[in-house]
């Protein structure tokens, strides 16, 4: 069970990397959504939308592919979580639908009420999506009641415990910070100066949330730290996370916005890595009956499938990374509004 790199561990890491890709990329556009209503005029809101315009759709594909990979590699987790958290996931789906169409529809009519409606939809849906994803992760870490067959045995209201809600709020704060730094990169002039102020506030908000979540995890969720205690070298990870987070205001202060954004990406990645290491080798903690927990062995597909999927990943991931990088390169630089803009 503790073999350093078996197939199941590798897939745990790969699924993790897909969700990390999602959190880093869609994280900033969810964050832009969270800040959207703070932009005052139509022109400013258009700049916000067009800052993520060419990339948000591709960013969401990371979630879809992560979901597909989870289904393929760990069908038991996919089945348990998505059916168990049914109402929450339905709300998440509606949030994602509304976001997608709000971005697309908003620009199609100039009427102020039309635009206000889609502005509101975009922002509320973005915050809701971030919150729901965070609450789901918080529950998976805290532990949910699972029966002997691995089926969810709790209720929707039972998912709204303080710790998962705290993780949810932390996720919103993290994405708002991440989004504000992304916006600094894409904007210029007056608006950029204002967003700089927001970035400072969101950084403070996030650090407060981060400290609370870390304390709560250390105090109340001992199983999330067990793996670290077994392998003390892993304590480097939370240290690196703290350094990445601390580096964000430092880089912003020095005027190196792009470095700040990279730091913010690193912080998102590191937080998810912490989550993964804390969970490992479990994937869903069962509480109160810990023996019913789903882990990377009892929830996995066959070794044959994991090997086939590895071939698919080895062929596909370099392609994905190469065109993701190309798209970001082509659309680098400040946003300019033109005829094809939202």
């Amino acid at each position, binding site marked *: 069970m503790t073999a350093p790199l078996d197939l199941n561990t590798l897939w745990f890491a790969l699924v993790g990397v897909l969700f990390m890709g999602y959190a880093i990329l869609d994280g900033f556009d969810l964050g832009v959504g969270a800040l959207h209503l703070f932009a005052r005029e139509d022109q400013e809101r258009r700049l916000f939308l067009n800052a993520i315009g*060419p990339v948000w759709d591709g960013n969401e594909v990371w979630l879809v592919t992560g*979901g597909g990979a989870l289904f393929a590699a760990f069908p038991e987790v996919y089945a348990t979580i998505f059916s168990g958290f*049914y*109402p929450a*996931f339905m709300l998440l789906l509606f949030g994602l639908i509304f976001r*997608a169409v709000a971005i*697309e529809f908003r620009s199609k009519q100039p009427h102020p009420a039309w635009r206000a409606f889609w502005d509101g939809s975009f922002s509320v849906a973005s915050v809701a999506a971030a919150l729901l994803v965070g609450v789901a992760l918080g529950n998976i870490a805290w532990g949910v009641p699972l029966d002997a*067959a691995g089926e969810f045995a709790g209720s929707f209201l039972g998912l709204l415990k303080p710790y998962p809600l705290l993780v949810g709020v932390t996720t919103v704060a993290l994405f708002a910070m991440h989004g504000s730094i992304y916006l600094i990169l894409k904007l210029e002039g007056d608006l950029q100066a204002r967003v700089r102020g927001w970035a400072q506030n969101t950084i403070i908000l996030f650090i407060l949330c981060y400290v609370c979540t870390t304390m709560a995890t250390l105090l109340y969720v001992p199983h999330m730290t067990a793996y670290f205690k077994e392998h003390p070298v892993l304590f480097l990870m939370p240290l690196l996370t703290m350094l990445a987070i601390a580096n964000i205001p430092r880089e912003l202060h020095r005027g190196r916005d792009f470095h700040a954004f990279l730091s913010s990406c690193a912080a998102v990645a590191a937080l998810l890595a912490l989550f993964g290491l804390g969970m490992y080798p479990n994937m869903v903690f069962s509480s109160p009956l810990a023996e019913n927990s789903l882990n990377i062995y009892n929830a996995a597909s066959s070794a044959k499938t994991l090997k*086939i999927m590895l071939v698919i990943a080895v062929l596909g991931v370099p392609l994905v990374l190469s065109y993701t990088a190309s798209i970001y390169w082509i659309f680098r630089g400040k946003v300019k509004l033109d005829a094809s803009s939202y």
Partner: protein
Amino acid sequence: MDTLFLSRLQFGLTIAFHYIFPPISIGLGLLLVVMEGLYLKTRDPLYHQMTRFWVRVFGLVFSLGVATGIVMEFQFGTNWSAYSRFVGDVFGSALAAEGIFAFFLESGFLAILLFGWNKVSAGMHFFSTLMVCLGAHFSAVWIVVANSWQQTPAGFHLVARDGSARAEITDFWAVVFNPSSLDRLWHVLMGAWQAGAFFVLSVAAWYLLKKRHEAFARASFKIALVVAMGASLLQLVSGHSSAGVVARHQPAKLAAFEGHYATGPGDLALLGWVDESAEKMTGLAMPGMLSFLVHWDASAPVTGLREFPPADRPPVNLVFQSYHLMVAVGMGLIGLAALGLFFLWRKTLESKRWLLWAFVFSVLGPQAANQAGWFSAEVGRQPWIVQGLLRTSDGFSPVVSAGEVLFSIVLFSLVYLMLFILFIFLLNHKIQHGPSEEDLTVGRQRA
């Protein structure tokens, strides 16, 4: 109403709504490649204007496809958890491959297609159009592979696990090329080409009727008509070979298509009604034609529904009607495309207003046929969710309550209704606005 019924209703509703959009994207994607290719080859600014206009429409259709498609990716887990546990080892790989190979390609290059006009060279833009078209086709490949495995499972074995069983892969290529994959893929892709082509024909015919943007409309009409004719004829061939696969591997479904109860020579109904309690199809039929199409012998026996216990039969009349609707519409589309080509060749097309009006409404044809076809394929597989292996009634999520599903159905219905109204409203807006003169000028400058 129980969780099973409601979950089936919800899946049907959400997939039917989703399936309005991807076929148009696939077919329109192909037409965009042709239009932009022609522009690069001839440097005629008209083709630039056409590409620009249809790319804008493509963006709208695509965004609805994405928004409604995310739901499908997760609905297996939310509403069909027992099914997901049973098939995950096999089915999940196809879904993951779809994400990796198709969706990233499609959504990545779509950014260049929509927003990259001034950021990349004309050649690079064309390459992006090609990649979006390819990505759209790939997405059909993997989802059809996954669905075909449910129809004709292959390349797996059943493994007992904690008191239940699940399917595990033994041969990946046998899963991918299961007996029905290729025929069904071809059938779905031709349906998609028809959806895209008749969509363009409809808008172009309307412009011709209203005498607006005539040069644009004529050129769009011609390209789309050629694709529509080709796809409609190929659809006939692929439909025939698909039915052959159904006859060999899913005889109960084929028998339901024709309301054929007693094993023996089979008739091909043109119109009819199946009385399931009397086990009888009443209607207009060509005697022995079903046997002839399946076996090239009008007297060869075709397996009838009585070979299957009633619990293993699909709802026959429903399948019969939707199947015949699909066939009838398919035939009608071939006729319409042929008429269009004939009068185009005679150069009298634009004076035939009735025909142009028929083309305006033809956009509904492939939509109806695609929906009816999927309906026949999926309902015809009942009572199985995976043919012969897992019953639909054993596939739903046991932990989800009927009330929860009812809640989500109500929400989906409201949201999708609103999306549909907005889609029509915005599409109409784009069509009324028409191709932009500015694009023509830009095309001229670029040439």
